[in-house]
């Protein structure tokens, strides 16, 4: 019973208790809670269940299997790393909110039924919006509000899909869903929002760069990977996901090349990496599904590391705009080094994590005969090195010297970055422990001469393309700008349409009011004409006139009587 206690509850409890704990102990609590949760996870096995009765349903609070455990492990590791990195963020509500957010995401991963999943889906949405708001700026408030609306829409779709499913099948169990089953399309849309499918993606690029230097680190770990987990369980082998995922790997990288805010560049690369996982889930083979889960695991860690390094730059230099930075390796050599480990990891350099994870998806796509898709994925692999692997460290730490001289990141941030970097390299050098926790049994050897050589060729020539474009001046300079993306439809077009509609309604309203006023005036004038002081019906009549009218009426009466 102790063993099956939901590990997420430990984090949620710590988050709720944190504001009541003395300030000196808060940081320690935030680190201790995920460690306790990790110990709990290690004590449960695939197959363990915890069921409770509530609302007339039997709810499965814990359903441990290899898929949920793999995501569970990396979620608690990410929470520990965040807590160390955000050691100084003990005063505001960010850290408690982040713990509740991480805990509810962890609970969602272990939810065995759709109702439990929905409850934690929503708690994580609200708690993560609080993390966005913790920045305290007007922009963060707006972005957080848009973020929350999108997340809650995802929850509503999930609830609607689950309700239809329950009505049709009488079961709330969260197993394979598939597109053709009752409520399947709604549930896919709900998961698709969390996974940032194309056109459903902008909440990510909108909210992540507006959060605090530490808050973005927490945000990058859980929401989208919860979506990937749910997609892997509910829609493995759904072919349409291959094309959705392929599109996701390619289109964000064009935006990443021209984006100035380096944390927004990373947000676009989150999108790109999620695409690889979605493709893996769509392929649905043992190798591809393992690849998707392994890549999610590796991605959480290197994305954490990259967002940490940019968070440290934002903290020390006060900006993460490519236009304002450059030459920071002189002031922040450790941060620069850790950033480059993250960059090498996301770019899938041999000996770094993505090399041993992403390739499983690529190989599976080629094996299944998806050659065009494979070519796009290869393009996106070169592109991710270009925009995340080179652009991020280059514009922040090298490029032209901006003259900014600041302090190195504080020790707790360096420790967190160092641990994350060690994990990225550790997975790349010793992939077997990660392979051993993957959901499907599969043999895969990442380090073959073929694979190492082809990947190195791809990366070195991508780097050559970057250097050549830089030295010839063809590379577009960083510019202060906003680049319109699909969110234009609701941040501008929608607002304009709304404002237009409001204007039209106001005009109609005014016209109606004018018409009413005119009618009232006309009625008034009529009344005045007849009943006014000079009106026909208001005149004082003369006595003679009265007598005459009475005489006429009497005469008429007599005539009618005798006739």
């Amino acid at each position, binding site marked *: 019973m102790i063993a099956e206690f939901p590990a997420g509850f430990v984090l949620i409890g710590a988050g709720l208790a944190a504001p009541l704990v003395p300030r000196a102990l808060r940081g320690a609590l935030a680190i201790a809670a995920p460690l306790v949760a990790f110990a709990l996870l290690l004590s449960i096995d695939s197959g363990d269940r915890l069921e409770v009765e509530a609302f007339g349903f039997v709810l499965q609070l814990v359903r441990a299997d290899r898929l949920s455990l793999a995501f569970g492990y990396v979620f608690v590791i990410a929470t520990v790393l965040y807590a160390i990195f955000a050691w100084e963020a003990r005063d505001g509500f960010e850290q408690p909110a982040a713990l509740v957010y991480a805990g509810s995401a962890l609970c969602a991963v272990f939810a065995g039924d759709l109702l439990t999943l929905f409850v934690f889906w929503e708690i994580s949405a609200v708690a993560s919006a609080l993390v966005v708001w913790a920045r305290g700026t007007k922009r963060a408030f707006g972005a957080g509000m848009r973020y929350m609306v999108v997340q809650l829409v995802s929850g509503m779709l999930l609830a609607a899909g689950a309700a239809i499913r329950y009505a049709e099948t009488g079961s709330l169990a969260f197993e394979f869903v598939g597109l053709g089953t009752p409520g399947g399309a709604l549930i896919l849309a709900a998961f698709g929002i969390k996974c940032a499918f194309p056109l459903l993606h902008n909440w990510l690029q909108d909210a992540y760069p507006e959060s605090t230097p530490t808050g973005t680190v927490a945000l990058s770990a859980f929401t989208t990977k919860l979506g990937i987990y749910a997609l892997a369980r509910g829609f493995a082998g759904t072919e349409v996901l291959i094309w959705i995922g392929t599109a996701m790997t390619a289109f964000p990288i*064009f935006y990443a090349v021209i984006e100035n805010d380096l944390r927004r560049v990373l947000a676009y690369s989150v999108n790109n990496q999620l695409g690889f996982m979605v493709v893996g889930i769509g392929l649905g083979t043992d190798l591809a599904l393992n690849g998707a889960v392994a890549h999610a695991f590796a991605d959480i860690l290197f994305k954490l590391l990259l967002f940490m390094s940019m968070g440290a730059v934002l903290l020390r230099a006060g900006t993460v705009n490519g236009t304002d930075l450059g030459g920071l390796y002189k002031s922040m050599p450790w941060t620069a080094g850790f950033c480059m480990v993250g960059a090498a990891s996301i770019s899938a350099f041999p000996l770094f994590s993505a090399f041993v994870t992403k390739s499983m998806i690529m190989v599976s796509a080629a094996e299944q005969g998806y050659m065009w898709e494979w070519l796009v994925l290869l393009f996106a692999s*070169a592109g991710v090195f270009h925009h995340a692997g080179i652009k991020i460290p280059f514009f922040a730490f090298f490029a032209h010297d901006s003259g900014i001289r600041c302090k190195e990141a504080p020790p707790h941030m360096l420790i967190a970055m160092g641990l994350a970097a060690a994990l990225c390299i550790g997975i790349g050098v010793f992939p077997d422990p990660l392979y051993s926790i993957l959901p499907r049994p599969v043999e895969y050897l990442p380090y073959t001469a073929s694979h190492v050589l082809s990947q190195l060729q791809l990366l070195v020539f991508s780097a050559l393309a970057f250097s050549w474009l830089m030295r010839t001046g063809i590379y577009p300079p960083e510019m202060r700008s*906003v680049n319109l993306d699909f969110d234009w439809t609701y941040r501008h077009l929608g607002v304009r349409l709304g404002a237009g509609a409001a204007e039209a309604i106001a005009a109609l309203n005014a016209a109606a009011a004018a018409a009413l006023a005119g009618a009232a005036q006309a009625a008034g004038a009529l009344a005045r004409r007849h009943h006014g002081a000079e009106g026909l019906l208001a005149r004082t009549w003369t006595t003679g006139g009265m007598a005459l009218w009475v005489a006429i009426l009497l005469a008429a009466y007599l005539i009618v009587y005798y006739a």
Partner: protein
Amino acid sequence: MTDERNYWLDKPENVSTLYRGLWALGAVLVLLDLAVHRHEESAFAELFGFFGLYGFVACVALVLTAKLLRRGVMRPEDYYGDR
């Protein structure tokens, strides 16, 4: 700060050395294709220097397309009126 250290990368000739070194590394990697028979799922990917050429062309195409994209989507920083 006036007593600024001189860094190796501050000298343009060192950056050029690095750049030339990268080309040399690329050349070695492509030539290794002659020694190592790469096993790929499709025949075209086994062609001499395929991955090097693809990586280079992909990145140049990416940057040129992104430059074009800027013409369509770039707006002033206060476009959404909240900065």
